[in-house]
């Protein structure tokens, strides 16, 4: 029964917005499914296992051989997705009564069957399944599952299901392969904890709490170390005789997207750092540049040349086999500095420490930070060990004061999940000359947060009463409402019509008092691009 059970899980995961509900569904899967299918299913969901044996064209040919072309075309037009159309229209063959395949049968079949026999094999499976099962099978064999269950979420579910701390699971995760039999044996108390040995494993990152005013008031400068909070992605570099990996904050393996970093990791250590696009001379590019490099399975030479990646190192977790995580931060920092001086790794540098004697001085440093590549400050207690997760009182993040503009609401869209009945996504714009002597609004960003529940309701009413056009789920509104929008940085962007992209835009307040004509102009925003001083002067 495993493909039908997998199909049921898949369908619920796709439609379920809630994280806890997803975890509950995964827990039930682990509890109810037999080996090796539960592990194969887990690997397929987290895309550790991706089949590309069958091409979508093969499925289309199979369907074309069974279904009248006119009906197939009408169906495809209506459904809008080929895989789903084929799953739904597939006519059961009279007399076919084979049991539905299991996940392991499918995995083995795909691996072992000669290419010429693949169509008949897949057709036979489709005959044995219902519509939901066919959809899951088609997605599985063509490698396009995409259900929104991250590896991290799956490991949290494993932890909740087994009662083991998630950190323990993370440490062995990358040392086990689908269908994870030793892992499940251990989690069910039937076997030893798998030994990750030399394989690179992910150690959950140490995270920081936002610094509040009350925390700041009691901060003793001599006990704390400050660094810039760089605006890239947090990574863990893990290299040794067993291999090299770049892990993202959530423990996803992102090595393939940054081959030049992997190449530079010819050492035996585990490091914590910030992945950035760093141009010649050590200048850090805005986050928008780094985005060009994210979520790629492979990268070409042009991309590597235009957006060269580097890592600014924060911490040293392992040196060789030696685990430094229990040592105080100051000791680890000294070891890190010595290590860099000795190893001199390419494409990596040290995140500098910022000297300060008082909170007031630190505050001034934070306010004066000018580069868009800096999000603010990190404060680390001098004696803090490196511990997984967000432990209060050890590390603080102290982001810069946001920038803001007064923008005009242009479009609104319904949100998703809990906000699905509210207009909660707002596209806003600023004025610029329209080239004919007048002014026009150009969209500069989209905000999904920052408002109170009352403001959300008020905005919903306003939007319904001031709609001028509808495009599917999007409403265009009268250009009459001013929103004060806060954001962390403004960066040049070729991909936006306005030429500028905002980092973390959110609604600060609704400016009912302000006429739309008095909202800010695009020039004002452009002046803020990569330039914090403009803001400081304006204050």
């Amino acid at each position: 029964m495993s493909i039908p059970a997998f199909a049921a899980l898949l369908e619920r995961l796709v439609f379920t917005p809630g994280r806890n509900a997803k975890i509950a569904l995964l827990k039930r899967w682990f509890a109810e499914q037999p080996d090796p299918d539960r592990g194969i299913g887990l690997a397929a969901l987290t895309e550790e296992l991706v089949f590309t044996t069958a091409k979508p064209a093969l499925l289309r040919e199979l369907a074309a051989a069974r279904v009248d072309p006119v009906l197939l075309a009408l169906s495809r037009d209506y459904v809008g997705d080929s895989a789903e159309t084929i799953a739904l229209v597939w006519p059961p063959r009279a007399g076919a009564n084979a049991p539905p395949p299991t996940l392991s049968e499918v995995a083995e079949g795909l691996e072992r069957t000669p290419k010429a026999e693949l169509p008949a094999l897949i057709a036979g499976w489709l005959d044995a399944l219902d519509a939901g099962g066919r959809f899951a099978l088609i997605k599985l064999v063509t490698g396009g599952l995409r259900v929104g269950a991250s590896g991290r979420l799956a490991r949290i579910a494993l932890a909740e299901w087994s009662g083991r701390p998630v950190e323990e699971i993370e440490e062995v995760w990358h040392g086990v392969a689908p269908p994870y039999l030793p892992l499940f044996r251990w989690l069910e108390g039937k076997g030893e904890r798998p030994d990750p040995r030399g394989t690179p494993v992910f150690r959950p990152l140490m995270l920081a709490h936002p610094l509040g005013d009350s925390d700041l008031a009691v901060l003793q400068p001599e006990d704390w170390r400050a660094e810039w909070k760089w605006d890239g992605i947090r990574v863990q570099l893990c290299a040794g005789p067993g291999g090299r990996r770049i892990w993202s904050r959530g423990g996803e393996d992102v090595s393939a997207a940054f081959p030049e970093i992997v190449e530079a990791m010819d050492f035996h250590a585990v490091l914590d750092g910030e992945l950035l696009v760093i141009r010649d001379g050590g200048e850090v590019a805005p986050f928008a540049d780094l985005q060009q490099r994210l979520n790629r399975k492979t990268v070409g030479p042009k991309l590597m040349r235009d957006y060269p990646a580097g890592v600014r190192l924060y911490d040293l977790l392992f040196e060789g086999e030696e685990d430094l995580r229990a040592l105080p931060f100051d000791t680890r920092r000294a070891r890190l500095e010595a290590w860099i001086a000795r190893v001199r790794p390419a494409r990596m540098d040290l995140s500098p420490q910022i000297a300060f004697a008082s909170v007031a001085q630190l505050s001034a440093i934070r306010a004066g930070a000018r580069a868009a590549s800096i999000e603010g400050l990190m404060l680390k207690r001098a004696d803090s060990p490196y511990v997984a997760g967000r432990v209060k009182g050890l590390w603080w993040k102290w982001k810069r004061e946001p920038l803001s503009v007064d923008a005009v609401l242009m479009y609104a869209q319904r949100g998703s999940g809990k906000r699905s009945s509210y207009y909660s996504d707002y596209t806003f714009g600023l004025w610029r000359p329209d080239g004919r002597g007048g002014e026009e609004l150009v969209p500069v960003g989209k905000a999904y947060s920052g408002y109170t529940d009352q403001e959300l309701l008020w905005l919903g009413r306003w939007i319904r009463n001031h709609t001028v056009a509808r495009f599917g789920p999007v409403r265009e509104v009268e250009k009459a409402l001013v929103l004060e929008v806060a954001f962390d940085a403004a960066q040049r962007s070729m991909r936006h019509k306005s030429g500028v992209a905002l980092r973390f835009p959110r609604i600060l307040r609704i400016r009912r008092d302000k006429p739309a004509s008095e909202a800010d102009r695009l020039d004002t925003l452009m002046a803020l691009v990569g330039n914090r001083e403009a803001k400081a002067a304006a204050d």
Partner: protein
Amino acid sequence: MPHPETWLRVTPAGLWCEPGDFFVDPTRPVARAVITHGHSDHARPDHGAVLATPETLAIMRARLGDGRAGRRQQPLRPGEVVVQNGVRIWLRPAGHVLGSAQVCLEWRGSRAVVSGDYKRTPDPTCAPFEVERGCDVFVTEATFGLPVFRHPRPEEEIAKLLASVALFPERTHVVGCYALGKCQRLIALLRRAGWEAPIWLHGALLPLCRTYEALGVRLGDLRPATAARKEALRGAIVLAPPSVVAERWARRLTDPVACLASGWMRVRQRAKARGVELPLVLSDHADWDELNATIDETGAPEVWVTHGRDDALVHAMGRRGIRGRALHLVGLGEEDEGEAETGAAEGAA
């Protein structure tokens, strides 16, 4: 023998039987109407004389109010025949909702069957569809007239719902369903699956459940959800109009699971667009296979399609040598079509 197209015509008010001078499911007020079933796109207010099954007449009175459900109501039970200006009229169950019937018409030896909305899957709340063989024209709907629509067995969908209730005992399952037919069928199916607990209803669903019970359909312990305390609804099943399951009304409940029982839930984008967490493919309309099988069983050489996806159905019939004709009746199924956009529909999908 006259061809039905000479005496049964498409007019702006709907299908008109010329010699009998009456309409079937007219879309505007007329002097004489024969009504297939009580859904609002078929049973509209303010006709003169209305002929329908006793159940449909009762449903019309409940929904439209006594004053607007026809000035004169004439009940006709399946099996009985009336003659109007030489046109013989009789009804056969359509299996769609309680009281739903196909309208069979015969004039000068020429016979047409107007089936209204129908389904072939057994439904504990209404009489099963009966095939009228030997008609010259069979008039069918085609709401789900595409081969992508093959409804699963209702029992499987109910099992899916109950499995979810068992998996999430802290959450309230809110199932969107139409007030007439789907709601009562869901309740009856849940009872058959052994769900004895109270079923909680949004205020808009209560009156027709009372009408069904008055007509002899037992639905068990039903309670108003609007007055209930939030805690009482943990782990409970609440039925509500489709328009509210993903809206504020449902969100006041404990971590609600938005479910929707509709044939449209077969298509994932439809479910996604409605913000549904648990789609239940449960329809009161014939699916693709039922439409084609029914057409074949009637033996009709010609089939008229009133509304829905007529292009695919006419094409498929043509390949079997059956003459198909799309009537493009306006006003029918508009609730169904409107459903995805507004969610406010009370149609019958």
